[in-house]
């Protein structure tokens, strides 16, 4: 998961314009919304919440020209993004006295298609 870029998170190419980013963001929010049909039985509540946070974070950075420029520079130079820019994954809350929350499920983000 750590090798994913913010562009991967939204499923857009690095050259995507703002309108594409906004469209991808809205689609991702729909996909990971509570009550989403498409993720039913695929993701638990904690995984959905975590993905929503990652999508939100990606959007917050990529919609802001200054933040995006800094992020692109970090990608180019291979430097890690600032620690505060990557939200921690929120596991599913474990019931009191119950077993620990399951390990995060592997998530594959396919390469963005042209025009995505």
């Amino acid at each position, binding site marked *: 998961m750590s090798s994913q870029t913010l562009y991967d998170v939204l499923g857009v190419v690095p050259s995507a314009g703002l309108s594409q980013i906004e469209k991808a963001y809205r*689609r991702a929010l729909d996909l990971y919304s509570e009550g989403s049909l498409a993720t039913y*039985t*695929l993701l638990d509540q904690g995984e959905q919440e975590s993905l929503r946070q990652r999508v939100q974070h990606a959007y917050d950075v990529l919609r802001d020209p200054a933040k995006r420029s800094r992020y692109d520079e970090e990608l180019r130079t291979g430097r890690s993004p600032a620690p505060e820019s990557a939200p921690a994954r929120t596991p599913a809350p474990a019931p009191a006295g119950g077993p620990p929350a399951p390990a995060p*499920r*592997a998530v*594959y983000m396919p390469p963005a298609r042209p025009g995505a």
Partner: protein
Amino acid sequence: LNVPLAAAAPETAPVLAALTHPRGRIWSIGGGKGGIGKSLLAASLGHELCRLGKRVVLVDADLGGANLHTCLGVAPPDLTLGDFICRRVERIEDVVVPTAYPRLGLVSGASDFLAAANIKHLQKVRVLNRIRSLNVDIVLLDLGAGTSFNIIDFFLASDLGLLTVIPEPTSIENGYRFIKSALYRKLRAAAQHELLREIVDGALDPKSPRGIRTPLELLAAVQRECPDSLDLVKREMAAFRPRFVVNQVRGGQDAAVGHQLVTACARHLGIRAEYAGFVHYDDAVWQGVRQRRLFAAASPTCRAAGEVAQLARTLLQAEPLALAW
């Protein structure tokens, strides 16, 4: 064929005449859950393909629960798929019956032979081989509900597999179960290493020690424990491309579920599914069933009929028949 499937469409007739062993394409319609409109979709899709000039045979492979004949307004035929399976009839062509629609034949599975639901491997192979040799353009298999090996094997043997869902959690849940069952069976069949078979078998039981819950987790387990098989697993996964059809859509959000399913499959299962199309909930559909008439023929201008027509065109573009030969 001894049924009046009529002549092939003008553009395909010379090609067919020249072929020694013409081979049609097999399309299957599955979905995991019952009552989501698979049979009506199969019947109306077959009807539409015929209207587009293709010669089609519908095969009711819902063994033990067949009613495709009713969707088409055909009385339960004397000879059915069960007769072919039991070798009461030697040639599959002899159980193809005509329908009211030109170029559309039917192999009924009318439930006169419940044991057919448990056909043996060799019987299944014989059915698949014979339907593949039928002298038509497309054989459409209407699969039953569930994820039994028979259903999955028919789906996997198809050139094009449609996965019907309706925008309800129960259907989506069964759809994902169907996808995983089919993929794992495909991997099991391709596996050469015993260890790979063991990993795949473990994936079939999420409570097994490896705790594999998705194909992506299976891939990770293969990479870790059986790296020699990694390329094989990747190839099989890449070749597995179910196409979603969202049925009984009631609005734009429902229709969008198909796109979300494709994205969810790619991101969380590692499977490149496709979205073939959607069909709206339409009163004309159940009215047609009541009248035992195919809605696409009884109400050709209804919304659902138009969407099935669009679906047929989309699938034909995705599956150029000429490539089959």
